[in-house]
C-alpha cells in the first residue's frame, strides 16, 4: 500500500436526496499528479472533502498517506495540505504573517515557522510582496499564498480543489507552475478541475468523475485516444462543396468525418495534427474549394464527458468511433442529459458549499 498516496474504495456519501459519491474508486501513486476531472455536481469536491477528513463517508474506505481517513484522521492531517475552491487566506494579515500563523498552527516552533514562511514566500514567488496585506494581492498571488499555506509542512499529499477557477490566463499559469514545482519536489497532488486542458497540462493521471463515481481513469494520452484526441473542424463556404471536402478530409485524417450540412461543417479526428491540417488546406486549395473556416481543436469537456457516458454529442460535435469504445466500456444504459453537461446543477453547488 506504501506506493499509493491515495486509495479510495467504494466511497459513498449522500446529502439528502443527492448521492454525491456513489462507489468512488481511485488510486494515486506516490509522487504523481492526478487530475480529477468532471462537471459541477459530479462529486469532485465531495471526494476531496472525504479524503481530507472534512467529511465522513457513509460507506467505503479511503487511505491517504497510508492512514485511514475515518479511523486515523489526526495522522492524515499531519500529512496533507488542502487548498479549497476559495483561498482561505487572511486578508488583513500580510503574506508573511499568514504563513507564520499557519506554520504555528501546524505546531512548528516560532523560529521554524518564521524560516519556513520565508522559504515558501521565495518559492511561490511572493517574496517581493511578503509584507503587503493580502487584500492588496491579485487573484493569482492569493492562490499561490493559499498553496504555500497548504504546503507549510511539505505534505506528502496535496489536495487542490479547482485551483485555477476564476483566474485569468496569466495568474493561471503562475498557479500551474507552482503545482508543477510541488510535484517535481516529490509531493503527490490530487487536483480537481473542470477543464480537460488543465488536467492535460499538469496531470500524470486523469480520473473522469460523473455522478459520484470514476468513469474513466488513465494517463492523459490514453484518455485522449479513448475519446478521439484532436479534431479538424472545417466550414466550407458553399454547401455544394461539402461532399468533395468530406473526401479530402477523410483522406487526410484517415477517418470518416461527421457532417453538419446546415452549418456547412465537417469534423474529423486526427492524429498527425499539423500534417493532416496542412494536407487538407493544400488539397482543398488545389481543388478550388472555398473554405470559410478551418481549425484544429481539442474535444471539449462536454464532448469528452458525453462520449464517455455514452450520451448524445452536443450539436456540431463529432461522435467518434473511439468515443463509442469508451462508452462501451461503461456498459450501456448510462445517459448523460443536457443538465449534467451544463454543469450548473443546484445540487452541485450545495455539495460544494
Amino acid at each position, binding site marked *: 500500500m506504501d506506493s499509493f498516496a491515495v486509495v479510495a474504495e467504494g466511497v459513498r456519501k449522500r446529502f439528502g436526496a443527492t448521492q454525491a459519491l456513489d462507489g468512488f474508486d481511485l488510486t494515486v501513486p506516490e509522487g504523481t499528479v492526478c487530475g480529477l476531472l468532471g462537471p459541477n455536481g459530479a462529486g469532485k469536491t465531495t471526494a476531496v*472533502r472525504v479524503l*481530507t*477528513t*472534512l*467529511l*465522513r463517508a457513509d460507506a467505503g474506505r479511503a487511505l491517504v498517506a497510508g492512514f485511514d481517513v475515518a479511523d486515523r484522521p*489526526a495522522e492524515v*492531517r*499531519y500529512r*496533507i*495540505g*488542502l487548498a*479549497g*475552491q*476559495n*483561498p*482561505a487566506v*487572511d486578508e*488583513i*494579515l500580510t503574506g508573511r*504573517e499568514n504563513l507564520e*500563523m*499557519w506554520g*504555528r*498552527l*501546524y*505546531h*512548528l*516552533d516560532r523560529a*521554524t515557522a518564521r*524560516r*519556513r514562511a520565508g*522559504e515558501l514566500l521565495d*518559492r511561490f514567488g511572493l517574496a517581493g510582496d511578503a509584507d503587503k*496585506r493580502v487584500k492588496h494581492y491579485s487573484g493569482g498571488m492569493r492562490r499561490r499564498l493559499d498553496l504555500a*499555506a497548504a504546503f*507549510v*509542512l*511539505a505534505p506528502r499529499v496535496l489536495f487542490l480543489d479547482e485551483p485555477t477557477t476564476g483566474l485569468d490566463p496569466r495568474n493561471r499559469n503562475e498557479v500551474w507552475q507552482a503545482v508543477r514545482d510541488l510535484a517535481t*519536489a516529490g509531493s503527490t497532488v490530487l487536483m480537481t478541475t473542470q477543464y480537460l486542458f488543465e488536467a492535460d497540462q499538469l496531470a500524470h493521471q486523469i480520473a473522469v468523475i460523473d455522478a459520484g463515481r470514476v468513469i474513466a481513469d488513465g494517463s492523459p494520452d490514453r484518455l485522449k485516444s479513448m475519446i478521439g484526441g484532436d479534431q479538424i473542424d472545417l466550414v466550407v463556404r458553399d454547401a455544394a462543396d461539402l461532399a468533395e471536402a468530406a473526401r479530402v478530409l477523410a483522406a487526410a485524417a484517415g477517418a470518416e468525418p461527421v457532417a453538419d450540412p446546415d452549418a456547412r461543417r465537417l469534423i474529423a479526428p486526427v492524429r498527425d495534427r499539423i500534417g493532416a491540417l496542412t494536407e487538407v488546406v493544400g488539397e482543398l486549395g488545389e481543388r478550388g474549394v472555398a473554405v470559410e473556416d478551418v481549425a484544429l481543436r481539442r474535444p471539449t469537456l462536454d464532448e469528452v464527458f458525453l462520449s464517455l457516458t455514452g450520451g448524445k454529442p452536443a450539436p456540431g460535435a463529432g461522435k467518434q468511433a473511439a468515443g463509442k469504445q469508451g462508452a462501451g466500456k461503461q456498459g450501456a444504459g448510462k445517459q448523460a442529459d443536457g443538465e449534467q453537461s451544463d454543469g450548473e446543477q443546484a445540487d452541485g453547488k450545495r455539495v460544494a458549499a
Partner: protein
Amino acid sequence: MTTAIAPVIPRSRGQRLYWTFADGCVIARGNLVHLARNPAAILNLLLYPIVMVLLFGFVFGSAMNVAGGGDYREFLMPGMFGQTMTLGVMTTMIIVANDAARGVTDRFRSMPISRAGVVLGRAVADMVNSVLELAVLLLCGLAVGWSWHRGLANALTALGLLLLLRFALIWVGIYLGLILTPESAGAAWMPLMPLTMLANTFVSPELMPGWMGALSEWNPLSATVAACRELFGNPGWGGDSWAAEHALPLAIGWPVLLTLVFLPLSARRYRRLDR
C-alpha cells in the same frame, strides 16, 4: 528545499492541553490584529457608544422617566453596558459564519489543530474585544455624569457579570454562526436589536403594558442589567416581581444556563460538520 520541517505531534494529555492553548493564542492573536488594523471597526468601537449615550441619554432621555425616580442617565448606563454585551453575539456569529463560508474553518479542520484551540481563540478574541467596548462605554458614562456609588468591589462585580453574559453569548454566537450563512448572520441584528430593548435596558418594565413588562423582566439581559444597577447603586433596580427581586442570582443563573445549553450544542455542531 532541504530544511527539515518537524511539527510537534502532541501525544500525551499534557502536550495536547499545551497545544490547545498555543493554538488558541495564535488564533486569538490573528483575530486581534484584525481589530487593530480595521479602522472601521475601531471607529465603530469608539463611535457607537458615544452616539448611543448621547442619543438615549439626551435626545430620548429628556422624555424618559425612571420608575421610582432618579436620574435617567444614571439609569441608562447599566442598560447600555448590557445591550453592548448582548450585541457582541453578532460579532461572534458573523466571524464564525464568514470563516465557515470562506473555507477558513475547513482549512483548520484539515489541519492537526485542536478543535478546542480554535474555539478558545475565538473566545479570547471576543472577550478582549468586549472588554475594550466596555471600557469605552464606561468612559462615556463617566463623561455624562454616571458613576458607581457602592464601592469599587461592587462595581467590579457588576463588570464581571456583564462579561459573564458576554461569555455565555459566545457559545450562542458560535452555534448560530455555524448554522447561518454570513448574510443571514448579518441580518440577525433585526430580531436581536428589539430583544435588547424588550428588557429593562432603556425603560423600566413597570412602565410598559403588563404582558410586555413581564416579558421584559424575564429577559436574561434584564437580570444582568438589574444586578448591575444594584451593584453600581444606580436608580431603577428592584421591583415587585420575582425576577426583579432575584436579579443577582438570575444574572449568574441565566449565563450559566445559556453556556450549559449552547456550549455542548456548538461543540456538537462543529463535530457534525463532517456529515
